């Protein structure tokens, strides 16, 4: 084999989430009454377009989750952990310039001292090593960009059209959105091979590559955190509401204590302590990638430990209401055990609350990652994320001329992801909330 698959901790958790997701879809498909609210989500064009956008992000994130180490000679493996996405975007990853360059630029952002043919020192903008390297005539850039964009967009449209024809999609908004995405992706793919579409950053890395890599970090923070939040909130909330008495008192006490600490401070304190532990045990990590990855997992854990209280309170309240219903009392008088009442009658009836709150939390977690990274308690500085991108680029706004592209790309990608997630979450809430009366 010329590669060795690597499963980092966060990868394993993502696979677990995917398995849970598939199991959920399979279960929901077999039950008509569970399928009903999802049908309502499906009827909304906005929700479907958002889902399409989200799945594009998800695809990039998933490709970036399949990690491997490439084989060197003599059966040894490279210490560098790469992902399938890295392989697909190899030109982007390897086309590293010297320093900043603007989107589609042919030259570096700042003047450099070089020797000309007569051996004199001249200060000039030197040509980029990769950006527009194939171009012999500088003035032909705009025509070349337009030609590549058109060719790429056409290829994308053609392939998108074929795919749509194969699945026989009907909905106009979805079809249009899909074709737009295909055209954009095609044009970007064609252009990215020859230019730096979104410019390069301080050490010359392609900003488009960095932005696409950030997606995985954002998605992991937004989703893996639920693996911690959900069981805690569900077990404790339902137990507090159903058993009442001292169980309720204890659980209420725990979540009141946790929620009385301002969340940023609690997260900061926990992350600082985690840093000390990781710094005093350097022997725990084989590679720097596994260290950064474990820090990401711990961050999700900490975010989960500090954010389950809201959902727990909601579930407790709902369970308090449910346990007074006739069907629960009937089950109790038949002598059904508490465990069975909880699992058969209470938990399925609070599922909509869980689902709504999880999709609503996703976007705030993605946004929180950037803020936490700025505060210095976010992901590992070596990990590519929206937060670290913004952090690295924010001081460059003071330069003249302004280096705007790195910040703009990070914010742009983040806005697209969060906006799509917010709109989708709204549709899910509207479809699942029983308080909204519909005929």
């Amino acid at each position, binding site marked *: 084999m010329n590669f060795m698959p690597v499963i980092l901790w966060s990868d394993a958790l993502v696979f677990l989430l995917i398995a849970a997701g598939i199991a959920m879809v399979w279960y929901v498909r077999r039950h008509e009454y569970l399928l009903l609210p999802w049908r309502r989500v499906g009827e909304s064009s906005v929700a479907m377009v958002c889902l399409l956008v989200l799945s594009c992000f998800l695809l990039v994130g998933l490709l970036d989750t399949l990690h491997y180490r490439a084989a060197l000679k003599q059966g040894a493996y490279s210490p560098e952990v790469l992902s399938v996405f890295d392989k697909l975007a190899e030109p982007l990853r390897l086309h590293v310039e010297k320093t900043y360059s603007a989107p589609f630029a042919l030259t570096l952002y700042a003047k450099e001292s070089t020797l000309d043919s007569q051996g004199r020192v001249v200060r000039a903008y030197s040509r980029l090593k990769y950006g527009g390297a194939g171009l012999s005539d500088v003035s032909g850039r705009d025509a070349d960009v337009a030609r590549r964009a058109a060719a790429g967009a056409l290829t994308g449209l053609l392939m998108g059209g074929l795919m749509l024809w194969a699945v026989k999609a009907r909905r106009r908004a979805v079809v249009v959105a899909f074709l737009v995405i295909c055209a954009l992706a095609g044009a970007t793919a064609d252009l990215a091979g020859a230019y730096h579409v979104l410019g390069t950053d301080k050490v010359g890395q392609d900003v488009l590559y960095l932005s696409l890599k950030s997606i995985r970090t954002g998605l992991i923070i937004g989703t893996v955190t639920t693996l911690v939040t959900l069981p805690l909130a569900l077990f404790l909330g339902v137990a507090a509401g159903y058993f009442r008495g001292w169980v309720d008192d204890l659980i209420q006490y725990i979540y009141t204590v946790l929620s009385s600490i301002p969340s940023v*401070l609690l997260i900061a304190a926990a992350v600082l*302590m985690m840093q000390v532990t990781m710094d*005093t045990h350097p022997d725990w990590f084989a590679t720097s990638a596994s260290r950064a990855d474990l820090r990401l997992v711990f961050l999700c854990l900490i975010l989960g430990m500090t954010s389950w209280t809201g959902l727990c309170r909601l579930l407790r309240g709902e369970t308090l209401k449910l346990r007074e219903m006739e069907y629960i009392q009937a089950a109790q008088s038949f002598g059904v055990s508490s465990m069975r009442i909880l699992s058969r009658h209470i938990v399925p009836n609070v599922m909509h609350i869980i689902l709504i709150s999880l999709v609503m939390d996703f976007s705030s977690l993605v946004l929180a990652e950037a803020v936490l990274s700025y505060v210095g308690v976010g992901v590992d500085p070596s990990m590519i994320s929206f937060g670290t991108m913004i952090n690295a680029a924010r001081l460059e706004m003071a330069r003249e001329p302004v280096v705007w592209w790195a910040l703009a790309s990070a914010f742009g990608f983040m806005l697209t992801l969060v906006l799509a997630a917010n709109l989708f979450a709204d549709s899910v809430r509207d479809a699942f909330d029983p308080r909204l009366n519909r005929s």
Partner: protein
Amino acid sequence: MIAYLIRRLLYAVPILIGVNLLTFALFFVVNTPDDMARMQLGIKRVTPEAIRQWEQQKGYDKPLFYNRAADGMGRIADTIFWQKSASMFMLDFGYSDDGRNISREITTRMWPSLAIALPTFLIGLIFYVNFALVMTLFRATLLDRTGVALCVVLMSISSLFYIIGGQFLISKLWHLVPISGYAGGLNSFRFVVLPMVIGVVSGIGSSSRWYRTIFLEEMGKDYVRTARAKGLSEPAVLFAHVLKNAMIPILTGVVVVIPLLFMGSLLTESFFGIPGLGSYTIDAINAQDFSIVRAMVFLGSLLYIAGLMLTDISYTMADPRVRLS
């Protein structure tokens, strides 16, 4: 009501003890003082003597909970828990790593924080409520739908973008106010106005949408129908009746944050160089000054609990039917 408040105060004690124990566990049990000393002095090449000296300097060379060597009250009092953690109940936060008294720093730094946070809070509240009322007044029209769409877009934008973008646009391009800094007295206005504007704008999305939901829920109630049947105009119904009745849900979310205004905002203060508690905290996090972070965690929960009590009191003022007993 006095009896109720005293009881609430007594309820607050176990919660604060819980917060205290939690922070103590986080800062002293998860990592021993030895680990922290090694961290502060550099990971490698630290002699045991240096560690011992550091611990002695900080007063971390005592047992955690129970001191067998001492006698009488000293067995409990001469421990890390008593001196570093329990003392916070007396609002004695000890000294930071650079040797300053944390309590004094807090009392001087909370005023700049308040100077930013209070106007942001008040102007924001008035603006959001009015914006939400206008959306409710024109509900289900193009204006309302545009407003809601705008809110969703605004709440999807990172708060970092508002700050960086605002600083760039207003200070760097238009040169209206200084980019960052702070001055006391009336001079502070120049420095306060930009963080304030940015603070208000960044809250429009989520807050206005939330108030709109509250107002719409009230609109469906019987008293609104009665008011309309009396022949009241729609604005009169909205501003005189709905606003008053929506006070309780609004107060629930709003009053609780008032005491926390003293803590300032981490992001705003560090971007604008305001010498408040927010930038104090963020500097402490970056310098890994654990005593300050511990003090801020405790202070934060103290103020939050004060906010919960204020919320209860505000209910009695907004709604005469509420009796605290």
